[in-house]
């Protein structure tokens, strides 16, 4: 029965999320208003660990508005869903691409480049993409760490003991993260990224020069405001920032064994090979 109720709540949440693509209902929620004029109950307070630091533990889903299909605001493109746009800096919501990287990004959205998205091969999504793939994350806080367990069967461990980053010549899919508390905000500094990841399925670009600073600020017992600032001088003309909420829900991680039956990969390869055959230079 608990599962049935959880399912019902989940579907209602999904329906609400879909209907509330327009900003109005969200704004109404923020004002604490319900239909009929009743005040909504106040959100639960921030949870805390025994040492007084915020307790972020829980199962979260990002309210990313389709960031996995584009960080900028964009309409649907065939079967690629629309994106609400999560870039808050620059203020115009556009990523400050270097010209070469913008050209690369445009090409990556074409069908014959789908094969090149590392996640199509079941590689991990990297940072910050792991947060906003449409798949949940479980956060746990063992002493001295914050650990993120992603349902797509990968993880990030973030030590909080002030250690230095690993040597620059070690490069990793999820990078090397170290964290610290600034008041109630968990600040996570990530370097040593390998430059092989895409930022989403349409191929927003991240080079090996990228450094990512994430800020996770709990605003209630059930919500974290998530920001990531990316500094990448190879692909961008200036740093940029995305923002979204992570909503805590009553659920648990399940298994996504991506290699089990990844039949799409062959189809993507076929599309790519067909394109290459047609465009072969004599």
């Amino acid at each position: 029965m608990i599962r049935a109720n959880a399912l019902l709540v989940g579907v209602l949440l999904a329906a609400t999320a879909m209907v509330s693509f327009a900003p109005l209902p969200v704004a109404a929620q923020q004002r604490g208003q319900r239909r009929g004029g009743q005040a909504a109950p106040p959100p639960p307070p921030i949870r805390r660990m025994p040492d007084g630091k915020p307790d972020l533990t829980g199962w979260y889903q990002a309210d990313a508005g389709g960031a996995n299909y584009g960080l900028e605001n964009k309409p649907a493109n065939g079967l690629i869903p629309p994106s609400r746009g999560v870039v808050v800096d620059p203020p115009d919501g556009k990523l400050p691409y270097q010209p070469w990287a913008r050209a690369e990004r445009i090409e990556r959205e074409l069908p014959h480049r789908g094969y090149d998205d590392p996640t199509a091969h079941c590689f991990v999504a990297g940072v910050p993409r792991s947060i906003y793939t449409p798949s949940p994350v479980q956060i746990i806080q063992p002493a001295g760490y914050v650990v993120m367990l992603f349902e797509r069967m990968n993880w990030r461990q973030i030590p909080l003991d002030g250690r230095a980053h690993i040597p620059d010549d070690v490069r990793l899919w999820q990078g090397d993260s170290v964290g610290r508390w600034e008041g109630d905000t968990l600040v996570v500094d990530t370097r040593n990224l390998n430059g092989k990841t895409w930022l989403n399925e349409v191929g927003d670009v991240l080079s090996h020069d990228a450094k990512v600073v994430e800020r996770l600020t709990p605003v209630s017992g059930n919500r974290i405001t998530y920001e990531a600032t990316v500094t990448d001088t190879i692909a961008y003309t200036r740093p940029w920032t995305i923002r979204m909420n992570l909503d805590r829900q009553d659920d648990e991680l399940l298994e996504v064994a991506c290699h089990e039956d990844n039949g799409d990969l062959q189809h993507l390869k076929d599309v790519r090979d067909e394109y290459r055959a047609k465009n072969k230079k004599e």
Partner: protein
Amino acid sequence: MSKRMKKIGILVGFLAAALAVASPAIAHHSFAAEFDTNKPVKLTGKLTLMKWANPHAWIYIDVVGPNGKVTNWALETSAANSLLRRGWRKEDLKAGTVLLVEGWQARNGSPTANITSITFENGTRLFAGSSNPAAREQ
């Protein structure tokens, strides 16, 4: 299925229908490359196999054509865990179950489709699509 589950199923069906109407474009890059939005399909057939697999689960149904010829269609859905969260249950999807499915056919014209929903004979409709950006799971 208990009465309560049936009621929940009907509600889920209505909501899934609302979701499907609200967002016709619910798939991702590989689907865009593989399936054709200009080839919508609506098929009724008997389930022959449900493959609960990752990263995408598959349903196979026998569809009887106008000439009586039976074609086995392969229907791609979301990941197994997403289906579970959307109310899909193994016990409801046994071989022989009659389903109405809606989706888009493969570009290559084969009897393969990416589907957005399944509807049981009792009218219960479940969302099947992948990567719905507004839904809470993939």
